[in-house]
């Protein structure tokens, strides 16, 4: 449905998006995830047609819509946008807002579609309200209904939950996903919050400094990140230093682990490997001791920050069941339970 090929977007001479390539299939929900200023919104605006591309091509329904010297105007793309501030027309009622993009239909058809959409987004009977009389969550649903009214080929969502209360976000994300799936809408959203991305998306792309670093599903992103930035941006975890010994094994402060022989590392290479909080098991039997330097109670679990007692006093996180209650400065035994090793060369590069 949507495919981007080596797309770059530049403002004056500054490149906001560099060389991005990905594809999104019919009915899929994609998400661009990255810190603010990473270029994800610029990319979204380029797909919508509000920005020109400086390199590469954007295709919709295998038709070229954006390239350096050809640009299809946004109004001809059949791409609808839900804006961060919702951009509802304050002088129109909810029904008028939703029907705003329905051009070739008579009033009976319009009314029917509006009623249908209001049912879908859970606001039946709100036809004659004005936007200022709605709550933030309700405004967002009206904006969504307006965008979906004309059954666009692609729906773009710019930080759809950023103006909402934290408690509302999870619930709305689930609802939104259900609505999009029900209408079989292809959608691309932008967010800086990985929980929203995980809750909504089929495919997630992590962006940093204008580049798309990885384009895959949530599981792979968490368990098989392609570089240190993705590994540290998605989920918690710390990197521990290690080296490759003469048996081609990873030799670290927490033990020796076999590595994939195809990984390309040579004997004597300095490397780092990722340790997630759930990889560190609290085990009183273990000889490896670590000191509790910080702890945060999370109900069923306690997240400990531990300091190793040898080899550079490296720190790591440990998620332990909440009845394993240890005070600060106590030494506790730990062991690593790594299902698979995530190893990067230690060159200090985070992107």
């Amino acid at each position: 449905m949507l495919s981007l090929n080596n797309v770059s977007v530049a403002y004056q001479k500054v490149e906001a998006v560099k060389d991005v390539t990905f594809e999104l299939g019919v009915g899929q929900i994609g998400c661009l995830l990255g810190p603010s200023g990473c270029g994800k919104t610029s990319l979204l605006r380029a797909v919508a047609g509000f920005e020109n591309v400086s390199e590469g091509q954007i295709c919709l329904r295998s038709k070229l819509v954006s390239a350096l010297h050809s640009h299809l105007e946004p109004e001809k793309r059949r791409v609808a946008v839900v804006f961060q501030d919702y951009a509802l027309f304050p002088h129109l009622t909810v029904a008028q807002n939703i029907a705003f993009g329905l051009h070739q239909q008579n009033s009976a058809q319009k009314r029917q579609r509006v009623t249908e959409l209001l049912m879908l987004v859970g606001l039946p009977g709100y036809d004659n309200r004005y936007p200022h009389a709605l709550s933030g969550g309700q405004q967002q649903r009206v904006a969504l209904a307006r965008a979906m009214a004309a059954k666009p080929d692609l729906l773009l969502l710019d930080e759809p939950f950023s103006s909402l209360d934290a408690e509302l976000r999870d619930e709305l994300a689930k609802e939104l996903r259900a609505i999009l799936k029900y209408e079989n809408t292809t959608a691309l959203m932008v967010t800086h919050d990985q929980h929203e991305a995980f809750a909504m998306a089929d495919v997630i792309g992590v962006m940093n400094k204008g580049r798309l670093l990885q384009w895959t599903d949530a599981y792979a992103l968490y368990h098989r990140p392609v570089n240190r930035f993705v590994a540290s941006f998605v989920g918690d975890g710390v990197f521990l230093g290690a080296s490759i010994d003469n048996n081609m094994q990873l030799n670290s402060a927490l033990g020796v682990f076999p590595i994939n022989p195809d990984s390309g590392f040579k004997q004597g290479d300095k490397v780092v490997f990722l340790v997630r909080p759930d990889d560190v098991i609290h085990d009183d039997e273990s000889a490896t001791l670590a000191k509790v330097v910080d702890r945060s109670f999370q109900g069923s679990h306690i997240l400990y920050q531990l300091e190793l007692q040898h080899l550079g006093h490296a720190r790591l996180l440990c998620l332990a069941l909440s009845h394993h209650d240890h005070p600060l400065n106590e030494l506790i035994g730990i062991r690593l339970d790594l299902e698979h090793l995530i190893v990067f060369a230690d060159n200090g590069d985070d992107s």
Partner: protein
Amino acid sequence: MKHINWLYSWFNVWFVSIALGCMILAAPVGLVFVSVFFPQTEIWQHLYSTVLSDYIVNSLVLAFGVGFFVIVIGTVLAWCIARYEFAGRKQLQWLILLPMAMPAYIIAYTYTGLLDYAGPIQTLLRETFHWQYGDYYFPNIRSLPGAIIMLSLVLYPYVYMLARTAFSEQPSSLEEVSRSLGVPPIKHLFKVVLPLARPAILMGAALAMMEAFADYGTVQYFGLSTFTTGIFRTWFGLGNGIAAAQLAAMLTSFVVLLLILEYLSRRKIRYYFQGQRSQQINRQKLTGSKAFWVPFVCVIPVFLGFILPVLQLLKWATMTYSKQLTSEFWLLLWNSFYLAAIAAITAVILALLFAYGKRLHPIKPIQLLVGVVNLGYAVPGTVIAIGAMISLSWLDIKINTLTENWFDISVGLVFSGSLFALILVYSSRFLAVAMHNIDTGLSRVKPSMDDAARSLGYKPLQILKIIHVPLMKTSVLSALLLVFVDVLKELPATLILRPFNFNTLAVRAFELASDERLMDAALPALAIVSVGILPVILLTMLMDKPDPQSSQVN
């Protein structure tokens, strides 16, 4: 316990002084409406059979004509300035406001001089085409359409300022929504942009139309029969003050309709632009022929409404200044300035009293009283003046009877014959101008700041000195300046109420022009215009500077 608190909050110094102040300020207008209960059948039969329909029709045509033209001029200018980027835009942005410095009666007589038979334009036409008298048709500026054009040329900035804000504050995402929904730009303009700006445009038009209803100088000079000229004629010609007040009440009821329109618009603007803090629209850079004619179109109103008349006034002034710059002129200047200064200080002190009273005791009766007195800006100067004249002369007669009976001396016209009457009328008419500035300033001093300073160990008077005075300084100064200039320009009330032999610049310029001594009127007129530029400069500075309040939000 609760009952006692309630009593206490009602009867305190603030409430009493505010109520007293409000009653004094509102008395003249109130009296005008009371006059309705004293029917003057004979005069009204006379008025009805002769001029009343002229008054009504002419005033309405004038107001609606002005409303129409200010909407067209103001909206077009606002659109060009808010949405296009072109050479000279920055300068035009404030040049466009300059006609505000020009009182309507001054532009009216300047154009009369420019356009009459012996004026430069007709002379030029005759010389170019070798015409003689009667060979050609030339429109007469001294007519109702002429008055509409004159007033529109100086009143369009009301619409321009409000519409410009409305256009530039529409978030860019609205336009992008329309584009992504496949809505053509022209539909977006008529379905979204203009409806959203409509309350602002209407509010500006309502303000301009209030001024048109209130205008006396232009219509009197052009010899038109409207309500304001009718009020003067009924009083000074027919000698019936009550009937004049009744006419004034009728005029005021027209204005009340405009006030309602303005109120509704203001409320709508609040709903439309509620909490929208998103990215504003980028101005479109003009190229080709548009880059030439857009600035050209933008210059026309300011050229006609300010540059051309000022050039003509300057020309006249250079011809007459040697015999004009006498001690009489300096006295005129002194009179005008100290009168305006006293009025400005009075209005600002009252505004401070009301604003602080409202803040310290946010109870309904105080808010209501202050809100009512704040409507004075809408009431034509003639109306307030009539009311003040009638009520103060009644008071003077009573006082004199009293003193004659008790002390056997007559104190004279202490209220109606002194500057007191003028100050009262100015304060009640321009209080809103001062209040607006003071309220803006006071809103910057958040109540939490007072609490914070108290908790850090400062006493109320110290807080006033170290927090309120520095934060309020600019608002107080701009309130003083704005009232000062408005008083300096004010004509009809000054004409009615000035003490015997007391002249101001505005009165003198108008008298000279009425005597067809246009050239001699140029010097006082220029003095008024040049002082009138000060608030325009102030306004420009405020418009350029981002509102300190909005930068605190977010």
